[in-house]
């Protein structure tokens, strides 16, 4: 351990500790602060609301984490999200029209959309890896194309008329607790109006976290994740070590699109509609979450856990301000400042990221 001390002569333990975990500390601090100042923040419902509101950010942030660690950026996630919401809604309605039961239609529609959603990612990957188009431009073009296609599909409107079941799934919870009636799963019996019903663990959050767990595992534990870091750190070294960098980058962009697609499907279930620009507002927020989580836009550095913390930080901030009833125009200012501070901390304490437990394996 003594060598680690030697590696960072400039900063004390405390500063280094805070520097490395500032996002987490900030998250805890703001959560506690809201508990005290915002009436109604300190409730199970609001607590779950933070996670529901965070779902798109968790998924798009994770998508962006893979891409940013590999040294790229994916501007198309927001519109792949919209594209997926439109495609899944259209498919489900079509399948139902063809006689499928609502459950089957939703199942097949969502599964098919997950496959279709990977197509823009594949194109991104080919453009970036094979044709050497800068990621910024490649994914921006794909943004335009997926937006255009989804607008064409809905002819400028939105895809709706979804079976009621989709909304039941999208707004449902794993368990319900009714005092006097006890626990029940997935549905609860009809009770007199006004009886408190405690809803526990939203289905969309569960769905999101299943995927988050899979991809966190992929990034942290596997060869694939390791190679993603290596490519972001030094693509030449990766090539010379025999890693098929081009194929790998293609997969990274496909993963990104897949996660964005899932987010779009969950949106469709939650809001009973497909909308081409539904995910537009999450693009920059997801990049912000990744950067707050400690990733570097130069590639090679970042963690999925950090991104989740970053996303939660934003989600708690937004939900807390809403519960407070404060006009959230200021949120842009706060987020802008947090973002810059995030990078400045990284600049002032470079040893934090270069020591053993910095933000990469």
């Amino acid at each position, binding site marked *: 351990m003594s060598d680690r001390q030697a590696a960072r002569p400039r900063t004390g333990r405390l500063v280094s500790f805070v520097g490395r*975990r500032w996002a*987490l500390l900030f*998250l*805890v601090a703001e*959560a506690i602060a809201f*508990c005290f100042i915002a*009436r*109604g*923040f*300190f*409730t*199970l*419902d*609001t*607590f*779950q*609301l933070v996670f*529901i*509101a965070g779902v798109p950010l968790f998924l798009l942030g994770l998508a962006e984490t893979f891409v940013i660690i590999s040294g790229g950026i994916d501007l198309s996630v927001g519109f792949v999200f919209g594209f997926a919401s439109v495609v899944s809604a259209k498919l489900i309605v079509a399948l139902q029209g063809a006689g499928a039961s609502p459950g089957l239609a939703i199942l097949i529609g969502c599964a098919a959309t997950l496959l279709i959603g990977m197509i823009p990612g594949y194109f991104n990957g080919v453009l970036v890896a094979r044709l050497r188009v800068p990621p910024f431009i490649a994914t921006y073009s794909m943004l335009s194309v997926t937006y255009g296609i989804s607008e064409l599909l809905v*002819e*400028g*409107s*939105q895809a*709706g*008329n*979804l079976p*009621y079941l989709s*909304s*039941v799934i*999208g*707004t449902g919870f794993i368990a319900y607790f009714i005092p006097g009636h006890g626990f029940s799963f997935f549905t609860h019996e009809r009770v007199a*109006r*006004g009886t*408190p*019903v*405690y809803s526990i663990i939203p289905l969309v959050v569960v769905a999101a976290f299943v995927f988050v767990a899979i991809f966190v595992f992929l990034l942290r534990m596997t060869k694939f994740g390791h190679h993603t870091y290596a490519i972001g750190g030094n693509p030449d070294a990766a090539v010379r070590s025999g890693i098929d960098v081009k194929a790998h980058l293609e997969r990274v962009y496909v993963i990104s699109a897949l996660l964005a697609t899932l987010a779009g499907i969950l*949106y469709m279930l*939650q*809001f*009973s*509609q497909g*909308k081409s620009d*539904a995910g537009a*507002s999450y693009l920059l927020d997801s990049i912000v979450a990744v950067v707050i989580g400690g990733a570097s836009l130069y590639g090679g550095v970042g*963690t999925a*856990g*950090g991104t*989740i*913390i970053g996303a939660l930080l934003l989600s708690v901030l*937004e*939900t807390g*301000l*809403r*519960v407070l*009833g*404060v*006009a*959230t125009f200021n949120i842009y200012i706060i987020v802008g400042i947090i973002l810059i501070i995030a990078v400045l901390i990284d600049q002032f304490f470079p040893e934090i990221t270069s020591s053993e*437990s910095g933000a990469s394996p």
Partner: protein
Amino acid sequence: MKKGLAFVVSALVFLAVGLTAFAGGQTEKSTASKQLTFVFVPGVVDPFYYTMEKGARAAAAKYGVNLIVSDYPKSWGPEVQVPILQATVAQGNIDMVFLAPTSTDALVAPLKKLYDSGIEIITVDTYIGNGDYSTASDFSFPLSYIGSDNVAGGKLMAEDLAKLIGDKGQVYVNSTNPDVSSVNGRVIGFKQGAAEFPNIQVVGVDYNLDVQQKAQEETSAILQQYPHLAGVFGTNLYSAEGAYQAVVNAGLTGAVKIASWDATADLINALKQGQVDLVLAQKPADMGYLAVEWGYKHFHDKAEVPKKIGTGFELFTKDNVNDPDMAQYIYTK
């Protein structure tokens, strides 16, 4: 590993905090004598809803209702509005929520949940389902829908614009977003109205997605394509402002008649200067006022609330624009 551990620990702390809250977070239900608390959730940040808020505040002051106005959604859509709605009602002790639903489908489930927990719902300006709450259905639980009849308004605009252009010629519609039910109603109503005039031809509908500059570009292009265009219908303030700027710029003021839906100060000003010819004002202040008033009557007097309440329109023309009685219908910040 340490980082992972830290994350898990913090997540557990979070969970514990949440569960503690779960045990003690809910408060006693209201009794009849206490002050009523209503929540207003606007559709999007826009002078229309701001005017509605003012109406609601006036009624709230009159009836002694505690009115909570949520954060204004920054764009139109349930993904923005629903989290705001849910976070605002999290404050607890809410008796009624009135809002402009941003989706006919997506708001049903969250509003139903609020309704089931004992909160009353009124929708203003826009509605859920098909807007008919008088027959029992999955979405008929709100107390009332208070708003203007967009189709009828669109029709009215078509008839009045027809009068201005002498019942003949080409007209064009600039609208905001095909996603929005109320705005679409105006387009449909306008087309129905125009269809009654055999010599009037609707040459197209463009969507500017609430960006005025886009509306201006689109209208400029249309003026090129149809050099003898007789009239333009802008379905909300962005459409109307962009459209009249394009016409002003083309030097066609007076030659192309402009009908505007929604009466902002700027559009009224343009009407005074002759750059706009017809301005329809909805009565957002009435919508807000009536929502609070009927809510109060429902709780206080156990009154039966009509399932649908129309608020009507006022039409500004160059003849009545300086009439002091009309000033109240201008949307203000």
